[in-house]
């Protein structure tokens, strides 16, 4: 998938390169002012600099796996360990229902989607700090730093998805049931993955800027994310939660924009879950609101943030 992404970025880059080869950039005039750059100008700039995204993203991914002495083994164990523990506690001991799917597979599916968001937010939060040396010396649109930092979260997802497929094969061999849904529904899962990544960047736009001012954000975000994890239907099906709530409170789970994303993902991959059009719509709108305000906030505090780094 990453290779495809690279090819796409590389390809589109060279196409553009040929296109603006004819434009005379020599006489291009520029102005530096204290005034903030508008959002549209920022977006244009981001597009011009899009090629750095790949370099930044690959750097982040490399960093992620560089210092792990156990290498590939670690890649699988690290995300798997909390899932196994949860399976033991919630699946075996508490016997949380799982929409008729083996609990391990159920939580693995939910976790793989959740983890994009979880790791994404934590990485994006640190992104400005991590790129400090570069940000203080070279100019590039600062938005690139948070956006590129989601990349390792996506590779971790890749790892979990591999495990997911392996688990499905295991159950197929063992019970003769192939839980994975191969078909156009998988596109819904892909969409959910994109939404999870997008939401993590949106939240990260806020937290990364706050993190510069208050180092404690980095630590508190971890606990905040844990809390968020338990209100998202990962360890339990949304349908069970809805059963427990009185009908007039059914809107409550949808205040969490990650709920419809995880449900969409589970539906796309396993064909379970509770996907409602209204829920998805509310989730998308909330995500867009967080993203929009995050971009404005990020853009507004950009200059002050760089001074503080």
């Amino acid at each position, binding site marked *: 998938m990453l290779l495809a992404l690279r090819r796409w970025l590389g390809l589109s880059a060279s196409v553009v*390169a040929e296109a603006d080869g004819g434009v005379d950039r*020599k006489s291009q*005039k520029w102005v*530096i002012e204290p005034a903030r750059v508008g959002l549209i100008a920022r977006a244009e700039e981001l597009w011009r600099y899009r090629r750095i995204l790949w370099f930044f993203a690959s750097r982040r991914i490399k960093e992620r796996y560089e210092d792990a002495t156990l290498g590939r083994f670690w890649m699988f164990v690290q995300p798997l360990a909390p899932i196994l523990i949860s399976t033991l506690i919630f699946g075996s001991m508490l016997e949380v229902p799982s929409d008729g799917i083996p609990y391990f597979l159920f939580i693995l599916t939910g976790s793989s989607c959740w983890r994009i968001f979880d790791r994404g937010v934590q990485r994006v939060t640190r992104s400005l700090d991590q790129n400090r040396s570069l940000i*203080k010396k070279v*100019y590039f649109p600062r938005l690139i730093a948070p956006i590129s930092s989601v990349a390792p979260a996506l590779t971790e997802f890749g790892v979990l998805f591999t495990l997911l497929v392996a688990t499905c094969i295991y159950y197929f061999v063992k019970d003769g049931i192939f839980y994975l849904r191969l078909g156009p529904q998988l596109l819904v899962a892909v969409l959910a993955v994109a939404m999870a990544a997008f939401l993590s960047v949106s939240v990260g736009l806020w937290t990364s800027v706050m993190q510069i001012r208050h180092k404690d954000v980095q630590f508190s975000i971890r606990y905040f994310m844990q809390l968020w994890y338990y209100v998202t239907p990962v360890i339990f099906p949304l349908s069970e939660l809805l059963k427990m709530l009185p009908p007039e409170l059914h809107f409550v789970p949808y205040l969490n924009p990650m709920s419809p994303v995880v449900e969409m993902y589970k539906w796309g991959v396993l064909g379970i879950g509770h996907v409602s059009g209204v829920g998805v719509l509310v989730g998308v709108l909330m995500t867009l609101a967080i993203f929009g305000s995050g971009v404005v906030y990020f853009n507004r505090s950009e*200059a002050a943030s760089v001074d503080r780094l």
Partner: protein
Amino acid sequence: MDSLVAEGLGKCYVLSREEGKSSRSLWRRLRAAPRGDADPASKTREFWALRDVGFRVESGTILGVIGPNGAGKTTLLKILARVITPTTGRVVGVGRVVSLLELGAGFDPDLPAHDNILMNAAILGIPRLEAQRRIKEILEFAEVEQFVGSPLRHYSSGMYLRLAFSVAIHMNPQILLADEILAVGDQAFQERCLQKVVELGRDGLTVLFVSHDMDAIMRICNRVMWLHQGAIRKLGDPEEVVDEYQNAIWSQADIAQSERGRRANRFAEVLSVRLVSSSGKDIGGAPVSEDVFIKTRFRTSKPSLSVKCALDLSTKGQLIFRTADTEARPLPQPGIYEALAKIPRDLLAELPYVATVGCIFKRDNETKEYPLLMYNALSFLVYGTETPETPTSGRLDRVGFIAPRLEWTVRQEAYAAGA
């Protein structure tokens, strides 16, 4: 044609004294954050790193930027490179700006040269094809062709610099910002860089070149800006500005350290302090095995004066000795005089030394003294002339802040012989 016009440029930093204490409510801090101002509750102090700086640079100008540490040189370059946003003022420029603010900024040490060039190009907003076309040229100029495949972390700092400089100048910039980094390379490469800069300047490249190396500034710049405490002190002809700057460093050091210390008073003015050889020629370094002289030239404006000169010699921040003339010397007529202090051969070690020179003037019928004092007026290197037979022989014989050659004798004691 103006390639860069800056007006009223200023950069203000708010220094917070309570950084790190988080007793105030997060909410108040959050509200303060997006406006970019300081926390409302904390005591803050403003610091203007740059204030009201305005200048025009015509294209093809190589503008040297000089000034003491903390004068705002780097701040100015960072604003021009868009790394930081100015607080006041504006800059209008034409064409692509390429900056070399720090060695290796924008390089990924894990990637080989080829990928780094492409990444750098991307950071500069240069189309991939354009960058790819130039890779060969870049590697050639940087002299790193045989290391193309190895990741940058295996590069020496010199190779790093060569690659960085090479990438910068081959990206077809209209404005090049170089901050002090050329000091890293070896002599030959520095020379090549400076030549290249001069050459590109002739083709219309505008260069802002920050350096403490006045020699390089004088050689390649056709204009010099002297920044002092965030403002332009002087902007103009290199020779003039550099001269005045160097003079000011002396007098400023005097004022800072001693109210007695100054370069001129109402009787006399010190013109220069130089190191000369026994034949009277100005020299930059002193050979260990030759006598050298510290020559202080001064002009007196009143008759019937006398002067007593003194000298502090220090190395590595350590005062090695202070020595003064044995008596006051008469200066009957107003005019230009030179005082020579002989440093005998085989006294100093092979080290860089710094001399502080003092001249104490007296009127013939007064007892009051009028001293002139120049801190760090002269620095020079003492170097060895004999090549030792083995690398360590000779070198180990005389070690320390000074290395005098003493007279040694060894003889057998008469009474001991028969005992």
